[in-house]
């Protein structure tokens, strides 16, 4: 299938679905709080002031990005530590395994009590949910080396540090990006739910307010913005992945696998 068709067909399907939705709304005339039409959602963007949008969008995006990026940084550092030192491995890994199983979202109310209802709590929740996929995948990637390759490094008398830099790190890159892709979707979810639990700003907050006022168009508009943001974050990761790994097989399947 040509590239043009691959873009046009989903686009056409999408437009048709939107059209069908609008027609249904026009014909059945459901109450707006139940099922708004696409145009009602567009109207929300026209009527609500840009400043207010910017404040809430900015809040959520900032919190998500800060949590996400620090999760990546700490995730990589933790993985390197686990692989480099038996002591760190023995100390951290059991704790990580236990924490991985607990739904981090469950911590949200607790974090709010400890750190208040500000942006910091949101960043923290985002960090917690994004951290685990990164550290788990990175550790796996650093460790999954063919034993014969390790044999070769011993023949060349390579130091542990050189093996880490020249062999383990490049080998870990596909795993790293898998983890980052998962983390990016989780980070957005984490931020929104954090805002649900207790925040007075952000897109999650907007959704809560909208629901309370039965302002479904606003709720859906907020969800739309969040989705676009999440999608952008994911796609940027995919692009960075392709740029940094020209040697990697870049089939569509590999993107789908990482979503599951």
């Amino acid at each position, binding site marked *: 299938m040509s590239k043009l068709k691959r873009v046009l067909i989903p686009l056409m399907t999408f437009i048709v679905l939107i059209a069908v939705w609008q027609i249904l709304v026009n014909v059945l005339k459901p109450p707006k709080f139940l099922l708004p039409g696409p145009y009602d959602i567009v109207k929300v963007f026209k009527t609500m002031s840009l400043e207010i949008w910017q404040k809430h969008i900015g809040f959520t995006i900032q919190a998500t990005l800060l949590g996400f990026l620090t999760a990546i940084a700490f995730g990589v550092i933790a993985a390197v530590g686990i692989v480099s030192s038996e002591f760190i491995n023995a100390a951290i890994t059991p704790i990580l395994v236990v924490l991985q199983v607990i739904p981090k979202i469950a911590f949200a109310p607790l974090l709010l009590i400890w750190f208040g209802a500000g942006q910091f709590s949101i960043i923290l929740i985002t960090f917690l949910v994004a951290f685990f996929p990164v550290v788990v995948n990175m550790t796996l990637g650093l460790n999954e080396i*063919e034993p*014969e390759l390790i*044999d070769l490094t011993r*023949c060349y*008398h390579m130091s542990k540090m050189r093996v880490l830099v020249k062999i383990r790190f490049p080998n870990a890159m596909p795993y790293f990006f898998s983890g980052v892709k998962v983390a990016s979707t989780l980070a957005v979810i984490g931020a929104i739910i954090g805002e649900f639990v207790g925040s007075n700003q952000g897109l999650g907050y907007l959704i809560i307010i909208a629901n309370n006022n039965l302002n479904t168009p606003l709720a859906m508009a907020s969800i739309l913005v969040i989705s676009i943001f999440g999608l952008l974050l994911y796609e940027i990761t995919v692009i960075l992945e392709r740029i940094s790994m020209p*040697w990697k097989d870049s089939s569509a399947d590999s993107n789908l696998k990482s979503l599951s």
Partner: protein
Amino acid sequence: MRNDVYIHVNQLTHCYQTRTGPVLALEDVAFDVEKGEFFVILGPSGCGKSTLMRILSGLLQPTQGTVIVNGKPVVHPLERVGIVFQQPVLLKWCTALDNVLLPITALGLPVKDYMGKALELIELVGLAGFEKKYPRELSGGMQQRVSIARALVLDPDFLLMDEPFGALDAITRDVMNEELLKIWHDKKQTIIFITHSINEAVFMADKIMVMSPRPGRVSLTTPIKLARPRTVETRACAEFGEHVVNLYNVLEMKA
């Protein structure tokens, strides 16, 4: 020890400690390999071939016995031995050329001094034009050729090959047999070549050492005096067939 003996193995015994108790992998293995000889170790799975190979390369210290290579006992991983495994073991993120240069960069040697040699070797193994390709763009046979070029880049006197063509299809394997012999004829390195294919063993070897399994022991050592260079016709001649039948019998008896 005669002075053309390059590798001398004596009373080699190795015992692994496993969860279920000690496992004797090799028992009293002894053999000599002359300089420039194509020495083939032939045996079924479980005869300790890979253990033997790791001990010969210095990656593993035997529980008993000695290995002397070029007059010096092997006590740590040998630097200047060319090793080829059954899998190509290439760095997926490096081009064929960079993979061939891996020993150079790993040992911290100046790359520009070896660039010519690396390119020459890539041509020698029949991969001219594929220098900039990544492993994923190469077939299994081509990847294995890169791995052979890599083993040769430091101009080793000693090559250790553990079933290097085992993962290839039969046709490619036969082609690679001839290619390897051609490469060997050039510099006449001392080669220890491990295989479980009787046909391959007879085609390649100056001498075959047959091993039997559990524990790994030497069954017999036999010279193969077929004329060189060996071609596909060699595989069809009567003497070749006799050797093969002979070895079948030896291996059957010990099964």
